[in-house]
């Protein structure tokens, strides 16, 4: 699958979560987003840094096949889903220490 990724960052919840990050983390997240902008979907699925994973514990609404999480900074994940060629971001994890079960 060589389909290029098209980023949809319009979700107001995602933007609010992103802007609430401490500045260094926000810049790290933005670097990740710029990196994804130049990737294909196949690369996103296989990237060991992003660690694209299907979320099992939350049922998606009608019209969304599945919700996924991906690593947006070294210690924080975001939720998103695929809609055709679009990668639509939904939220950013509120607490990076909890993301990997440290709390």
């Amino acid at each position, binding site marked *: 699958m060589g389909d290029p990724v098209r980023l949809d960052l319009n979700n107001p919840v995602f933007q609010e979560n992103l802007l609430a990050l401490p500045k260094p983390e926000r810049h790290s997240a933005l670097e990740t987003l710029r990196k994804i902008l130049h990737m294909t979907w196949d690369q996103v699925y296989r990237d060991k840094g992003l660690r694209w994973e299907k979320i099992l514990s939350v049922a*998606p*609404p009608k019209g969304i096949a599945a919700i996924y999480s991906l690593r947006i900074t070294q210690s924080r994940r975001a939720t998103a889903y695929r809609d055709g060629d679009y990668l639509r971001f939904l939220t950013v994890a509120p607490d990076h220490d909890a993301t990997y079960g440290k709390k």
Partner: protein
Amino acid sequence: MRTFFTSGSHFWSVDGQSVSWGASFCAIVHACSSAVMEAIMQDVKTIGSNGQISFGKRYAGRQVCVEEQEPGVWLVRTVTVIPDNELWLNTPKAQSDLQHAMAWASAHPADDTDTQHALDQMTRG
């Protein structure tokens, strides 16, 4: 209170209506004074040669926790499994944010017209 009695594989109510089942079936029915009937059904199932029984399609795909409380007595409960690395998503705020975000996404089609502008704005902010 309806009274049932058995005759072979059939159960009969006192009003003469037959409740008959291919397999044996036991129904305990009690009537409230307001005539709302509540049936507590116990279904006798046969464990297959592979050790399996069926709970019907209603629960298909669900995961269950099975506790053997004593030999031949089991408590079966449906469970929801949350992977350790999704625990962060199951806090009230994360759940609320995700529900709102999904609702918004469902109501708005995908669009990347402003993506570069958004990235630039958020970098400057």
